[in-house]
């Protein structure tokens, strides 16, 4: 008989004990912290343009008597966006300078940024885009959209899946049939077309906040059916467990049984499912934004930034920094998959309530 996992802390300890689990958790922790502190870490706002400096390359660093400094560049050939460093001209990096005001966590009013240079000089860690906006800053603000969309989306779809699948599995009958036929219908329609059709069904003139919500809702609407089916199956098998019968004989109401006896036993599955499904939301947002029907300017999201990289006239390896959102998507998706796989490895041998 396998020892059964009992405490959540034990689970996370086991995940961290594995190198790939520690790596995935570390990466994700880093990414989410970056997104959380984006306005502090980013030297500029997501929409701050500098039309004098389109496609500016990442600035180089030097050391001067005033401390760490960035090189300054001159636009040698504006038609080709060719920049050359000006020998001997630098701008010193200031730590925690006052910049444009923002609210940290949406609450604390604040003007300080982690670093910056004296305006009108600019620091471009990851270069600039076609309107001279700082790619690094936009990447951070984009992370807020791209990373939160996965969390919110998965909460909604797992929540709906849990309620629909849990009730279907527990009570059976007509509700079960209804839920199962609905999920089959949803799953029979190719996801991308449904996504496009749903998005198309709504007017395109939305504020960026509304579009964000719309994307989350559309993606969750597509995502809940798979979760509901699995949860229904798990609920069905859990329902046949003797401890559920014991709870019935004790006189617990069905709701209490679902809440107290079934949900904790589904938690492991939900965790794995969440980790493995979040990439779908991140990629879904990226795809929608890439196609121009997702997050709208001037907000930033990784998909939107990639879409702009595609607009480039001259595309050699010159403007590699414009692909950094792609790298960010890749790293995030890989980290979530790694985390999901590790979680499954840790949980699976125990994810059996039956010991027979």
């Amino acid at each position, binding site marked *: 008989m396998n020892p059964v996992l009992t405490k959540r802390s034990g689970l996370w300890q086991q995940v961290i004990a594995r190198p790939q689990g520690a790596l995935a958790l570390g990466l994700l922790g880093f990414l989410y912290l970056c997104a959380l502190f984006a306005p502090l870490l980013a030297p500029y706002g997501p929409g701050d343009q500098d039309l004098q400096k389109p496609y500016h390359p990442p600035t180089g660093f030097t050391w001067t008597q005033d401390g760490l400094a960035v090189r300054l560049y001159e636009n040698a050939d504006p038609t080709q966006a060719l920049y050359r460093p000006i020998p001997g001209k630098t701008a010193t990096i200031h730590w925690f300078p006052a910049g444009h005001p923002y609210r940290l966590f949406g609450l604390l009013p604040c003007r300080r940024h982690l670093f910056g240079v004296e305006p009108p000089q600019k620091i471009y860690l990851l270069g600039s885009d076609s309107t001279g906006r700082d790619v690094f800053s936009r990447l951070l603000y984009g992370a807020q959209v791209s990373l939160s969309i996965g969390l919110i989306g998965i909460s909604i779809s797992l929540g709906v899946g849990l309620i629909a699948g849990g009730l279907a599995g527990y009570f059976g009958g007509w509700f079960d049939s209804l839920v199962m036929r609905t999920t089959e219908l949803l799953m029979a329609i190719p996801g991308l077309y449904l996504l496009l059709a749903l998005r198309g069904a709504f007017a395109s003139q939305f504020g960026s906040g509304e579009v964000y919500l719309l994307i989350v809702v559309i993606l969750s609407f597509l995502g809940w059916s798979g979760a509901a089916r699995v949860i229904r199956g798990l609920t069905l098998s859990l329902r046949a467990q003797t401890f559920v019968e*014991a709870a019935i004989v004790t006189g617990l109401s069905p709701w209490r049984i679902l809440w107290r006896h079934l949900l904790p036993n589904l938690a492991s599955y939900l965790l794995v499912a969440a980790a493995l499904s979040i990439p779908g939301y991140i990629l879904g947002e990226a795809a929608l934004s890439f196609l121009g029907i997702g997050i709208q300017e001037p907000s930033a999201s990784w998909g939107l930034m990639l879409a702009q990289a595609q607009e480039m006239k001259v595309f050699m390896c010159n403007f590699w920094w414009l692909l950094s959102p792609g790298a960010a998507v890749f790293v995030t998706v890989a980290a979530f998959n790694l985390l999901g796989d590790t979680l499954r490895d840790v949980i699976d041998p125990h994810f059996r309530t039956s010991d027979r």
Partner: protein
Amino acid sequence: MTSSTLSSPQPDSAHLSPILLEVEKLAVRYPLSGGFLGRSRRFVEPVKGVSFRIRARQTVGLVGESGSGKTTIGKAIVRLVSPHSGEIRYRQERIDTLSGARLRPYRKRVQMIFQDPHNSLNPRLTISRIVGEPLEIHFPALRAEERRSRAADLLQRVGLSPDSLDRYPHEFSGGQRQRIGIARALAVEPELIVCDEPVSALDVSVQAQIVNLLQDLQQDFSLAYLFISHDLAVVEHISDLVLVLNEGRIVEAAPPEELYRNPQNEYTRKLLAAVPSL
């Protein structure tokens, strides 16, 4: 018949005590899966018209081989399954027609101990939650600390130390888990407990301990038992009456001594032959 009443240990008190449970022509059907939209006209009928009664403080043994329908009868009594036909009365009241919250008063009086100790405790709950849960439902006035101390008392009563309270089921052996299951059943202060093969999953040495515990508890709490077993040897020395079940029908009902001395039924003789002589 008279000779048996004389030889049984406490003949009169057991026989004169009030009738708790009356099962009359009970039949249970399970639908077979399949058919259009899960609706099926085919079914199995593991219990085919069974009648018996259980008096207060009495132990009624129910024996039969695997698949004879013993568990199904037990489940019908605690209303885990609904009877297809027949009646179940508890203290003269029909309980086979009740459902949902209206069953709750009945659930306070009739409890069940399950066959499989590894599956009957939720692996994610601590023992104090498992034993405290019936108290929460049936004694809502109790505060959390009172529930906890009652749970500790119950554990002590079934032979477990109170520091088991914060542990999880997997930390216990089969016999200990069965004790936890007994404590959970006792928590509501029931009058009748359906014991579905409470010892058949356990080691022989542990079996005797659990049977003795159940007998002690019966004395202390004036319990009646429906004691289900496939093993006549386990049933015979604790039962006041033994029902022999074969393919969903009761083929013989007699006090154990009489059953041994003079089995009336072919099937009973077959069962007896399988019991090592004591």
